[in-house]
């Protein structure tokens, strides 16, 4: 039987969010989409508490790791723990508890999830989430914690964002844990159709509860470029400088295009393992003065760079969502982006309006050809329409409306709630009854 959030007319519902990704002092750019999504639903609840279990990579040696865990437990356990986790109120109005989580460097997702469970268990008052709805981000980690710490009858919603989902499902122990999460979750949300298909194939018995609900992106807050784009001369790439992002192909493609067009420039904004080799390659191609490599900048500064360029080229091999593309289109900038998963969905119906979608390829000529076609039809692009479409899809209000359905709470503020077994109130999702248009 599905869970419903029942109005009492007196008390309003509480939401607990559990995530391994949220901005911290150490990782100020981590989980900005979790932040935006949580901010978007803040007003649906009386109180929203976010528990951020942050990886603290520790010793690889099992004995040393055990010692770290024992010391951690001694510091955080008991009625009067030496280190008590405190919640801080964010500017967005929800509460955050940052929970350091000692983990070993070995890529073992089940063990990592259990480490997160251990750390959260140390600090969670009463050992349970005192909330009517629990939303876990990332199936293994947040989803696992939601499953382990939600009270029976609490509505559990899980969002899967992980680009490494295949690796999680490839490890028998973490796959078994994922199956438990799937059993427990009332709704399983994927930020893209690609992820939804991947989960549906892995857990065919649960397809009814798997839906596509994107992350919120505060498109309304993205500053629009002061002057519209003219010629597409100044290219920019924003992101990790890695092979999986297609940056080597971009450099080669730029070299081909730049041969005929002396006005072309390329900025690569970000850091990563290929930054140095590609800097050397640019020099080798005689393009050191036309390809600029710039270290990553804080998110709010990215728009300065976007506004100073004419075309975002995003040649990634795979993206679950593709936040950079959405931000570029939101800022009024044309994009040349590969059909690498997320972008086909984020730009659905906007091919030729926001920019151009091209095939994923190892061949740099594909990028060159895409650029030339886009340059020919640049005057036909409609950046205002593209931005408006994205606000309708990913803006805070749009996503909040969708999540209100999934949470089974009223949109525009919760009259009151208590979780009880039964059916979902009007508009709510019951085992995937609604939101099916996304399947």
């Amino acid at each position, binding site marked *: 039987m599905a869970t419903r959030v029942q109005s009492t007319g007196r008390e309003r519902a509480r939401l607990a969010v559990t995530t391994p990704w949220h901005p*911290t*002092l*150490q*990782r*100020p750019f981590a989980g900005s989409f979790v932040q935006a999504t949580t901010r978007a639903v803040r007003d649906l609840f009386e109180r929203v508490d976010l528990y951020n279990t942050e990886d*603290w*990579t*520790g*010793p690889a*040696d099992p*004995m*040393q790791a055990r*010692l*770290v865990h024992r*010391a*951690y437990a*001694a*510091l955080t356990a008991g009625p009067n723990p*030496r*280190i008590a986790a405190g919640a801080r109120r964010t500017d967005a109005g929800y509460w955050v508890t*940052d929970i*350091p989580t*000692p*983990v070993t460097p070995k890529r073992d997702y089940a063990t990592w999830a259990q480490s997160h469970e251990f750390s959260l268990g140390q600090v969670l008052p009463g050992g349970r989430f005192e909330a009517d709805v629990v939303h876990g981000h990332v199936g293994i980690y947040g989803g696992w914690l939601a499953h382990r710490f939600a009270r029976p009858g609490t509505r559990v919603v899980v969002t899967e964002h992980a680009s490494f989902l295949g690796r999680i499902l490839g490890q028998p122990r973490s796959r078994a844990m994922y199956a438990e999460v799937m059993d427990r979750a009332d709704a399983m949300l994927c930020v893209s159709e690609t992820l939804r298909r991947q989960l549906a194939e892995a857990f065919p018995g649960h397809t009814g509860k798997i839906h596509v609900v994107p992350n919120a992106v505060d498109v309304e807050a993205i500053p629009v470029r002061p002057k519209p784009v003219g010629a597409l001369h100044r290219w920019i790439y924003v992101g990790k400088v890695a092979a999986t992002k297609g940056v080597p192909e971009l450099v080669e493609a730029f070299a081909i295009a730049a041969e005929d067009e002396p006005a072309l420039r390329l900025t690569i904004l970000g850091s990563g393992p290929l930054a140095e080799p590609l800097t050397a390659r640019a020099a080798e191609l005689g393009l050191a003065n036309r390809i600029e490599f710039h270290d990553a900048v804080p998110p709010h500064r990215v728009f300065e760079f976007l506004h100073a360029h004419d075309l975002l080229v995003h040649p990634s091999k795979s993206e679950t969502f593709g936040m950079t593309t959405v931000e570029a289109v939101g800022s009024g900038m044309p994009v040349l982006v590969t059909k690498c998963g997320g972008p086909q969905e984020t730009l659905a119906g906007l091919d030729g309006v926001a920019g151009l979608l091209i095939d994923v390829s190892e061949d740099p000529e594909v990028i060159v050809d895409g650029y030339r076609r886009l340059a020919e039809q640049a005057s036909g692009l409609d950046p205002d329409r593209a931005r408006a479409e994205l606000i309708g899809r990913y803006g805070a209000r749009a996503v909040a409306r969708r999540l209100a359905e999934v949470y089974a709470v009223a949109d525009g503020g919760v009259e009151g709630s208590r979780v009880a077994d039964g059916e979902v109130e009007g508009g709510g999702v019951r085992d995937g009854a609604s939101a099916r248009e996304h399947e």
Partner: protein
Amino acid sequence: MSVLLVAIGTTRARAVCGSADFLLARGVDVGLVTVESEPWRREGLDPRVTLYTLQAGEERHPLARTGRMVRRVSGPLYTKVYSKVYRLLRPYVMWRVTRKQVVRRLDLSAVEQLVICDSHAIPIGWHLAKRHPGLTVGFELDRAPYADRAAAPAGAAPEVSPHTAPSGIDVDA
């Protein structure tokens, strides 16, 4: 008044440097217990932070000396046996060195907060917390006590010579 940070490695350097900058800008003395100083210079840690390095003290510890002797006698014995055993004992050795080089040199009653900044530092933090029940301990800096203090404008901070606590001085001796 001062704040003591403990970070064995630089995996969380951004947080450590950020906390140090925040405190120094408000006139609070900052100390950092770590293994070696050079990686922190590379990470851009403010030179006004007093470093208490453990590397030389660790090298002087009898167990480490034994290791060097074993290596001279037999490379395979060192790799296959000694290094595996030492890996297990290292946290204990690090605590012993901390106790000798930091605890006995510092007036911990004047330390307002002890901040455990990385995973490897948790055992040392726990030992320090156990020995000093009145010490405020956390995994992150509680900024609230300093929030009302005006931050010194960038560049206006007094120039202080970098001071690295002399490593390897056995104050027990």
